[in-house]
Structures are given as structure tokens and as C-alpha cells.
């Protein structure tokens, strides 16, 4: 039952590509608002449907990926032409058109919000293909945002969702020439399929995040940040720490400061390894489950309030299952004698998987931090920050993103955190270097819609005069202030709950 979705999306994209900045801002604000209003409801729904993660953390991500995202990009303009008199170049934005977006089971609704808002900021139509495990919450969320978009004047069909995602259907849609770009977040097979499709694709690989703590680190802070990050949403973000690499000189003290993390004895470590990686393969039952449940399953007793299981390992090699990506709050712990050895260990972890993704370091030695960044094959390193919310831009000034570009080293064409700019090209009007440059002041090729898009097909002899243009949007700075206030309110209420 999906034939017609892409045609409908093409019509919506065609109409949307002519909208002016004020109209786009109004739609984006309304959709973000709808997303934030339902952040908690969908967070709970996602946990219920997938069994993954922590509802209050998901709610936080949902807010970050709705009103938070709009705040982040409030000063950006992907709609108006830009004039550069010095270079004698005018740049006119050209939206991709139809974005086909695959969203994962791990961060289902946050990714739906994120990709929809990126598409809307850049005047694209989007078709969401949710992971089958999370299809109900994602479809409902997409419908809620679609209704808000329509209410705010977006073209009909600008947001659509596949209600019954099945592999043959998804593969045929990915290969359809009516798709302009695929944005794939998910496992390696999905990403590979996106690249194979023949359509332009922004696909991102998996993570396997090493975090290095050297002798110069603020251990109190590092311990707290690592535990919070590892426990956040039960490690379901692909940016969660996987292997903690600690310099010998400070390792014991670091571990002792990691409140909420339980250091497993070698025997218990073996029990957890056997439970989480039976036969050496990760058991997906453990995705996004909390630490005490995992311990229980492994037959290990842990103190109440345990949020992270700390599993000592002695070699960062593929044959050590605990050195692989673990989307659950089990953190491998590796001791190293020196910073040099720590960097090598981080490289070894990323040879297993996660190249191009992210790493973290806790250190006050700029030289070590620089060497780590230069040597470790990732495209973002969180410094003195938890990586779950650091790599994804919530606790750092990286772009807020649910889609982490892993670059060429990670088999991806995208090397940055996916951001609105990835979904728009720019047509350049380039003058001859000696020709006088034109006067483009006040020129805007776009305009607000003159009523609902499309207008209802009344017979031509009964057609009423076109409605007056929609009311002008509030001033940008007023809007920005309003959004800021709402986010603060929401974050405050989340903290209270």
C-alpha cells in the first residue's frame, strides 16, 4: 500500500521548494513544538514498543531533537539566497527534493523528529521508513508532525511514513529514481543497501567508542561523566562508551570514583561475557536494558543502584567479545601503562568496528589530546565530556545529531554530524571576474503560499478568490526567545520528574 507515496512526495517537494523563509520558519517552529509537546508520550511508547532504553532519557533526546534542534539552527538560513559581492557570486539554495529516511529501533522517535526537522528546514519532502521494531511509535510520531506541518501551511504530503516497513519494499523504494537522497541510520546492512541503491545516500556506520583517561585527567569529573554517559538511555546511543582505557597510574582511583559502576570480578566478568555474548555473538535481548537486569540474567549479584557494569579485559582484540560494540551498560575496562599505549589501544578498539565514528578522552594535556585526535581514526572526539551526549552534540558544540557521519574511513560519504546543510545544494550565479556585479538587494525568488497547498480542486466556475497570504511570522528573534523559553521549561520539568 505504498505506491503513490513517492509521487505524492515529489509534488510536495516541488511546492515546498518555492516557500519563503518566513513560511518555512513558521512550519518548522510548529512541528518542533508538536514534537516537544509529545516528547514524553513518545519516549514512553518507544520504550514500551522496543523494550530499549530509559523513557526519561528518550524524552530528553526528543526535546533535544525538536525544539532543541530549532534553537540550535535558529540563526541559520537554508532558504534565502546569499550574495557575496566580493566574490561576485550569488548562491541560491536548491533542496534535495525527496528525502528517504531510514530510522533505527534504538533512537526511534528522536531520529524521526531529527530527520523530519532537517528536511523541513531545507524545504524537502520526507518519507520515513521506520525500523520494524519501532514502527508504531515512529508512524504515530510522523503523523503527529505531519499534521502540525499541514496546520502551519506546509504542502500536503511533505511528511509521510511507511506504516508497514518490509525489506523488499524498502529496497525497491531506496532504488527508486523518484528518491533524491537516502539518509540511512541503522545497522551496517541497511547502510550498505542504501549505498548500493544507485541513489545518492548519506549512510553512517556503527560506533564502538573508546574513552581514554590519562594521568592528567580530572578524575572526579571523568568518573562521573563516564558513568552518566554510559547509563544514559541504557547505552543505546551509538555514541555510548564501549571500552574505557585507563592509564595505570590513575586507574584504581578512577574506578573507585565511578559511583554507580560496579567493577566485576574476573569470574563475574566471564559470566556477563557469556550472557551478553553467548558463543561470541552479541545477544540483542540486552540492547538498552539496565545494568541490574543484565547482572541478573548473568547470575551476578550487584549492589542496588548499579547503573554500569565495569568489565575488566586485558586485550583490545576482536576475539575479546567485550571489546566489541555493546548497546547496553556494560563497559569494558582496559589498563594501559602510558598515554602512547592508550592511543594504540583506542586504535585497536576501532579496528574491531566503529572506525570514523567517535571516541572520547579525559585529559588536561593538550599534547596528548592532540595526538589522540590525530591518531585515532574517528571524526569526532569528545574531550572531558561524556560521549553519549557529547558526540551527538547535546553536551558539546558539535551539531546536535542522531546521525553521525563516519566519513570515508567509516564507509560513508558524510563525515560530519548530519545537519540541515547536508540536504540542500546551492546554485551559484558566478559573474566574470571583470564584469560589474549586479544589485540583488531585497530580491527573493521565493514567496509564501497563497492558501492551502494544493488548493482544493473546486470547479473553475465556482472557484472563490485566492485566500489572502497567511499571516506574517513573528520576528525571528522573538521566535528564538520563545523557543528558548519553552526548552528551558521542558528541561526543568524533565529534571523535576
Amino acid at each position: 500500500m505504498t505506491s503513490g507515496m513517492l509521487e505524492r512526495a515529489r509534488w510536495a517537494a516541488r511546492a515546498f521548494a518555492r516557500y519563503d523563509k518566513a513560511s518555512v520558519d513558521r512550519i518548522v517552529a510548529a512541528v518542533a513544538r508538536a514534537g516537544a509537546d509529545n516528547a514524553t508520550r513518545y519516549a514512553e511508547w518507544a520504550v514500551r514498543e522496543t523494550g530499549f532504553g530509559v523513557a526519561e532519557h528518550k524524552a530528553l533526546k526528543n526535546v533535544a531533537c525538536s525544539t532543541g534542534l530549532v534553537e540550535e539552527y535558529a540563526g541559520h538560513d537554508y532558504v534565502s539566497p546569499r550574495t557575496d559581492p566580493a566574490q561576485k557570486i550569488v548562491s541560491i539554495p536548491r533542496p534535495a527534493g525527496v528525502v528517504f529516511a531510514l530510522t533505527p529501533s534504538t533512537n526511534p522517535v528522536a531520529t524521526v523528529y531529527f530527520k523530519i526537522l532537517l528536511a523541513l528546514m531545507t524545504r524537502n519532502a520526507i518519507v520515513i521508513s521506520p525500523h520494524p521494531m519501532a514502527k508504531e511509535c515512529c508512524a504515530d510520531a510522523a503523523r503527529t508532525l505531519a499534521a502540525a506541518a499541514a496546520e502551519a501551511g506546509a504542502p500536503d504530503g511533505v511528511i509521510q511514513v511507511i506504516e508497514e516497513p518490509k525489506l523488499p519494499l524498502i529496497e525497491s523504494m531506496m532504488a527508486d529514481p523518484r528518491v533524491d537522497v537516502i539518509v540511512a541510520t541503522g545497522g551496517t546492512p541497511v547502510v550498505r543497501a542504501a549505498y548500493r541503491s544507485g541513489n545518492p545516500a548519506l549512510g553512517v556506520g556503527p560506533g564502538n567508542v573508546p574513552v581514554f583517561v590519562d594521568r592528567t585527567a580530572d578524575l572526579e569529573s571523568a568518573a562521573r561523566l563516564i558513568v552518566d554517559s554510559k547509563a544514559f538511555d541504557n547505552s543505546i546511543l551509538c555514541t555510548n562508551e564501549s571500552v574505557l582505557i585507563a592509564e595505570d597510574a590513575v586507574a584504581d582511583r578512577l574506578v573507585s570514583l565511578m559511583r554507580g559502576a560496579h567493577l566485576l570480578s574476573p569470574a563475574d566478568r566471564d559470566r556477563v561475557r557469556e550472557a551478553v555474548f553467548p558463543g561470541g555473538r552479541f545477544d540483542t535481548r540486552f540492547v538498552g536494558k539496565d545494568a541490574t537486569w543484565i547482572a541478573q540474567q548473568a547470575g551476578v549479584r550487584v549492589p542496588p543502584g548499579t547503573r554500569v557494569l565495569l568489565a575488566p579485559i586485558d586485550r583490545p582484540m576482536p576475539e575479546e567479545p567485550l571489546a566489541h560494540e555493546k548497546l547496553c551498560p556494560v563497559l569494558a575496562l582496559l589498563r594501559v601503562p602510558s598515554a602512547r599505549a592508550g592511543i594504540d589501544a583506542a586504535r585497536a578498539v576501532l579496528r574491531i568496528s566503529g572506525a570514523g565514528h567517535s571516541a572520547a578522552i579525559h585529559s588536561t594535556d593538550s599534547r596528548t589530546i592532540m595526538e589522540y585526535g590525530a591518531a585515532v581514526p574517528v571524526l569526532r572526539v569528545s574531550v572531558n565530556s561524556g560521549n553519549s551526549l557529547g558526540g551527538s552534540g547535546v553536551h558539546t558544540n558539535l551539531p546536535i545529531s542522531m546521525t553521525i557521519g563516519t566519513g570515508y574511513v567509516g564507509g560513508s560519504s558524510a563525515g560530519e554530524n548530519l545537519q540541515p546543510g547536508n540536504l540542500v545544494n546551492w546554485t551559484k550565479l558566478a559573474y566574470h571576474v571583470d564584469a560589474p556585479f549586479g544589485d540583488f538587494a531585497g530580491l527573493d525568488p521565493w514567496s509564501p503560499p497563497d492558501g492551502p497547498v494544493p488548493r482544493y480542486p473546486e470547479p473553475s466556475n465556482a472557484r472563490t478568490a485566492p485566500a489572502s497570504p497567511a499571516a506574517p511570522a513573528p520576528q525571528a528573534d522573538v521566535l528564538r526567545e520563545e523557543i528558548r523559553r519553552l526548552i528551558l521549561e521542558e528541561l526543568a520539568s524533565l529534571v523535576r520528574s
Partner: protein
Amino acid sequence: MLDYGLFTFADKDEVLEKSSAYWNPGKTQFWIDSGVPLVIDRREGYFLYDVSGKRLIDVHLNGGTYNLGHRNPEVVAALKQAMDHFDIGNHHFPSLARTALAEALIETGPEGLSKVIYASGGGEAIDIALKTARHATGKRKIVSIVKAYHGHTGLAVGTGDERFSRLFLSERPEEFVHVPFNDLAGMEEALRGRDVAAVIMETIPATYGFPLPAPGYLESVKRLCETYDALYIADEVQTGLMRTGELWGITKHGIRPDILVTGKGISGGLYPIAAVLVSERCAGWLTEDGFAHMATFGGGELGCFAAMKTLEICNRPETRSIVHHASDVIGRGLERIRDDNPGWFTGIRQNGLIFGLEFDHPEGAKFVMRQLYDNGVWAIFSTLDPRVLQYKPGILIDPVLTEELLDRTAVAIARAAKEAGK
């Protein structure tokens, strides 16, 4: 060499020659003389290809038969699947496919219709509608509009213009009253005697060039029918199946017809079938004598499969959205072309993706049709008003093809103006 396995022709000339000799000399010659020497070979989506390889965007679509495009892949798949198990079926017995389609039609049809009668084509379906109305009312007279067209079969031809009945000595003015379109006084005059079984109306008369009912006209006709105890038959063969942006054009008028006729597009252009939807009041004969109207091919089960898939596609929210977008964009595009051709392209009649384009010349649409053909578009003039071009883009059309279509249309209309001396 034109080689199709079962038969071959040396070239197009041989086809035309034999077409004239063995099939229909009048039609064959007409198209040659009209500058449209088309012999359709490949057909795919909204494209037709002449045997010469010339590509045409089809906006005739045989009155909506190819609404979903030629050989729509989903309808083809449904039909192929059906052919592994079904054939036409036996028209005497209760049938799986006929029952399923009837239920689907009633569920999606205008309120108040409860049973389906099948035909093998639109003409027969109109005959069934008229016979049903006569049975239900016990009256014989049928009122239709001047320049109407509802088909060529026994009763249907009587409702239409004499162009098609007189030749066969088939006009029957005592039974078939014709009143001018958009003339409520004339309509009331015809109904006042309370001896009329039914008024039959195309929601927009296609062959007359899609003149639009004046706002309120159809609603008033329906009220007159109620006042004078005549039934209202909605001929939705060309206006149905999402063409107007709703599944049935008549519902845009808020009218609940007593009988609704569908054909052409309901088969997806792959297997002939037509259907009559009737209210409980009209359905009496199906109980009284279920064998009273029979047709071996009526409701052929393969056709039911094609129709069920077609109906399902037409009913998708996506399809409705595409029609709304496309009618908005094409409507505005044609308005621009009209503004560029004052005194020649004088009017646009539009309801959704149904367009009648008016030209200021008694045979204006024939000039435009010829120029469109030269410029890669196939659209046909209105037989009963050749000033007007019928222009029916497909209901799944995409934006890129739409822009190409408008570009070609603009060129053709401007060239036709010169040819017509405008």
C-alpha cells in the same frame, strides 16, 4: 518489419491499408486526413508510441480508461495473479471475485447505494441503469441533456445526440426527452408531467466538451427529481475514480444518486468491465427475477480483479493528494498559456484533472489536436463541440512530466493559433 509474433506487417502503410480494407475505412481515413496517423505500438505509463517510434504523452486516456497509466504495474500484477486461478467465470452463479468487488464498490460509493449490477462495457451498464429505473418507477420516459452521450447500445444511444442514433434509425424522441444543459426551467418542464422514470446526467458532459454545470444546477436537478418522482442516474464513467479530486465527482455536489454508473477507468485499461451501483429502492428486480438481465462477460471475474486493484489505488490518500497537487499546478499553468493567447485560447473548464479547453474557432480543438500531436501530446477534440479540446492528464502524473506537458501544450496552442488564422 512490424513483427508481433502472431502477426506481422511490412510497414505502417500496410497496417493502414489493411485496416481500411478489413476493419473500418471511415475511421482509418479520418485520422489520416486529420493529421494524426497514429497506430499505437508500445504503451507504458502516460506514454503512447506510434509504430514509427514517435512518443506521445497521453492526455486523452480514452476518457479516463488509462487514468492510472497504460499497463499500470500494480493492476497488471493483480490480473496476472488472477489468471493463475480464475477466468471470466460463470455468470449464473454466485462468484468470489464479483462479490468481493461489489462489496468494495458499495463500501466506497456514495451513501445510499447498496447493490451492484455488472456489465461488460459502459453502454450496457447505461442500458441496465435505464432498465432498472423503468422497473423501479413503472415509468418509461428518460430525460437527458441536449448533446448528451451515454453510449451506443440500444437504450443508451437514445439518450444521446442524434449524431449517433439517426444513422441507425434508433432515435426515439417519445421515450427520450432532451433538455438543454444548465436550463432548470427546461428540466422542470420535462419532469412536470410526473411520467419520467429518470434523469440521466454525466456529472460533467464529456463528449460535449466538459461544459461545467452551473453552481447549484445538479443539486437543483436532483431536487426536481425528488419533487416529480423521477430517479437521478449519475453517469460517472468519465468523472469518477478520483478524476475530480474525490472518488466520485457527484459527491462534490453533495448529491446522493439513486443509480451510479462506472466503466472505462474501473478496469485499469486491461480488462473490460463496467458496473451499476443502485439503491435498495431500485434493486427490486434483482430479487423479483435475478435472471432478468444477463451477460456472459458482464462482471467477468478477471475484470473484477483488475477493478478491485484499480479502485484500491484510486482510493489511496496518496492518489487523492497527487490529483489535488496536479490539478492546482496544471490549472495555473493553463491559465498562463491562456493569458498568452488572447482571442484564441478563450476559456478553461476545470474540475480536478478534467479540463475542457475552449478555442475561438468552430473547429478550434482540431487545430490544437493536430499541433499537439506534432509536438508529442495526444489529446482529442470534443465530438459534439469541436471548439473544445478534452484534456485529461493522468491521476498519478508526476511534476516533471507535468511541466513537460505544459511546455508542449504552450507551443502547440500558439502554433495552432497561426494555423487557424488567429
